[in-house]
């Protein structure tokens, strides 16, 4: 019996080592491809920057353009081209690496079956996360500024609420994309999203009680003032002409 256990253990260890041995070259190929292409990207970007600066690319583009182009110094055309070249190389490295990783396994390999989809999906998930975070920040800022200019006292809560709504949505999408959690994510997302919306509705509803009553009072005053023009003098903000 002990011999059978020993045999089972040694076979299992052998299989694990063989799998690892098969896994490592693919991983090494992926890392190498990404590293080499990143270095190539850095080199290419540096060469392009020097070349375009020498050719006065930015100035030529501004002069030759019919449509007025607005470039900030931190987003000049030269910088855009060099960054595009660099990131193009990095993406190319990732694609080559993933292909090499895939080619390192037989089609029916279990590691390939489980790991490869995760690898490809994780690229999409990272992109989703980045875009989601950017949108959340942009929307939060937009809501904050608009709400402040609309004189809403709960502007910050509204802005935070919108930010977390988008972040929660992004997190759920990322997990769904990675196929992690299954129905738990859907359920948790539903609860969290609904919770935030309810919190916002309560906060805004309770916070704006005074505003609604003031607004109603204002309307009543306006109706009275329509009958008597001297009833309520116009406030300063109403009489201002900005342009």
């Amino acid at each position, binding site marked *: 019996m002990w011999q059978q256990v020993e045999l089972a253990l040694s076979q299992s260890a052998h299989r694990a080592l063989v799998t690892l041995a098969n896994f490592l070259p693919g991983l090494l190929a992926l890392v190498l491809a990404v590293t080499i292409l990143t270095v190539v990207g850095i080199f290419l970007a540096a060469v392009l920057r020097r070349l375009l600066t020498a050719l006065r690319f930015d100035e030529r583009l501004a002069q030759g353009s*019919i*449509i*007025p182009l*607005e470039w*900030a*110094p*931190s*987003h000049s055309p030269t910088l855009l081209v060099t960054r595009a070249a660099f990131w193009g190389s990095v993406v190319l490295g990732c694609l080559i690496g993933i292909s090499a990783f895939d080619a390192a396994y037989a089609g029916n390999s279990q590691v390939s079956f489980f790991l490869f989809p995760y690898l490809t999906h994780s690229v999409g998930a990272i992109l989703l996360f980045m875009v989601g975070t950017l949108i959340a920040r*942009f929307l939060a*800022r*937009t809501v*904050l*500024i*608009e709400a*402040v*200019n609309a*004189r809403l*006292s709960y*502007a*910050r809560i509204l802005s935070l609420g919108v930010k977390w709504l988008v972040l929660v949505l992004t997190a759920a999408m990322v997990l769904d994309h990675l196929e992690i959690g299954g129905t738990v994510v859907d359920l948790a997302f539903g609860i969290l999203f609904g919770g935030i919306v309810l919190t916002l509705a309560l906060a805004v509803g309770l916070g704006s009680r005074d505003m609604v009553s003031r607004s109603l009072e204002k309307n009543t005053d306006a109706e009275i003032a329509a009958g008597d023009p001297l009833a309520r*003098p116009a*406030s*300063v*903000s109403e*009489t*201002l*002409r*900005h*342009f």
Partner: protein
Amino acid sequence: MATTPSNATTTAPVTASSETGMLVHITTVSPETIEPALSNLALAFPGIPLTVAIPDTAPNLSAGHSFDKLRLLPYTPAAVSSANWILTAADYFNTYKLAQEHNASACLMLGADSHTMQPESLQRLAAATLSTGNDLVVAHYHPGPRESLLNSAIFYPMSRSLFCARPRFPLAIDLGVSLRMAERLATTAQRYTAAGQDDALLWPVAEATVANFTIAETDIPVRSSPTPVTPDLNVLLSQIAGSLFSDIDSKASYWQRIRHTVPKRTITAATDASEPLDITAILQSFKLAYSNLQEIWALVLPPHSLLGLKRLSVMPQEAFRMPDSLWARIVYDFVLAYRLRTINRNHLMGALAPLYLAWVASHLTLVHSGIPAEQHIEELAQAFETDKPYLVSRWRWPDRFNP
């Protein structure tokens, strides 16, 4: 009726015998205002067969009017603008095309509601336009202390300090232009109209200054100003101030070289403190913005300005006063942030709105205390001039120089 400008032009009037060669372009017409506008022109230039271009969208006019002597020229606009309360790229483009087609030597561009101008004002504008040497004649209006505030707070001080231009209303809607000025404006306008941006705003005073053309001002004491399509302050700021900031960016190589300043205006007006003042709502708005927008302002403004705003946020209403130097610095920092795209440009203009309202509150408090509005605006313009080296330094080295 705030002031009498000390630098308004005085020229010989246009007489019946004058061979004017001038084209009048009424840029915006509506069924209700076209007849009064033409009657006003006929009253201003009696017996003179003035050529008046009106868009063919104007209603058909029957004979037997007081303006029958005018040579009406209905035309199909080459570019159509939807903004009828301000002069746009489409208007400048159409004006030059008309001037070229009819061999005009000068053009008078009249904005919406031009019928509310006095005939004498129209005469003065035409005479200044026709007088030798004037390439651009800009209307000088006389708004009350609560009117034309964006112009007083930003456009005039910026135009004066950066371009060393004297006109009090750099974005006036009644202009007189020589043919070469019209050509220059049309060339700039064409860049926008070709891109489908017919509603883009141009800054004629800055254009004339860069081209080294002669600029004059004419007094228009009475005129009702047309209401913007959207009276919302944020939209106005984005549209007009954004356009000014963009224009400043495109002309940076010019204004950085200018070292001299405009001589001080003589203010002869009395005080405008008759109206009651209640700035509570404006100040509440500023305080709300201060408690919420600090992190956004901190991306744009240096610590010194943030400290100034902190002091303002705790100032009592009666003594509320934004120093001119602080406002000048704020505007300059926002111009820089616009150029560097520190944050999204719409966000930037939205973040400027509460600060502008704080300036308005401070300005109204000062006026209420007995200081003439025009005097304060002159002092503000001087503060902008004094602080110009700061803008130039930060424009050249945005990261190195940030006190």
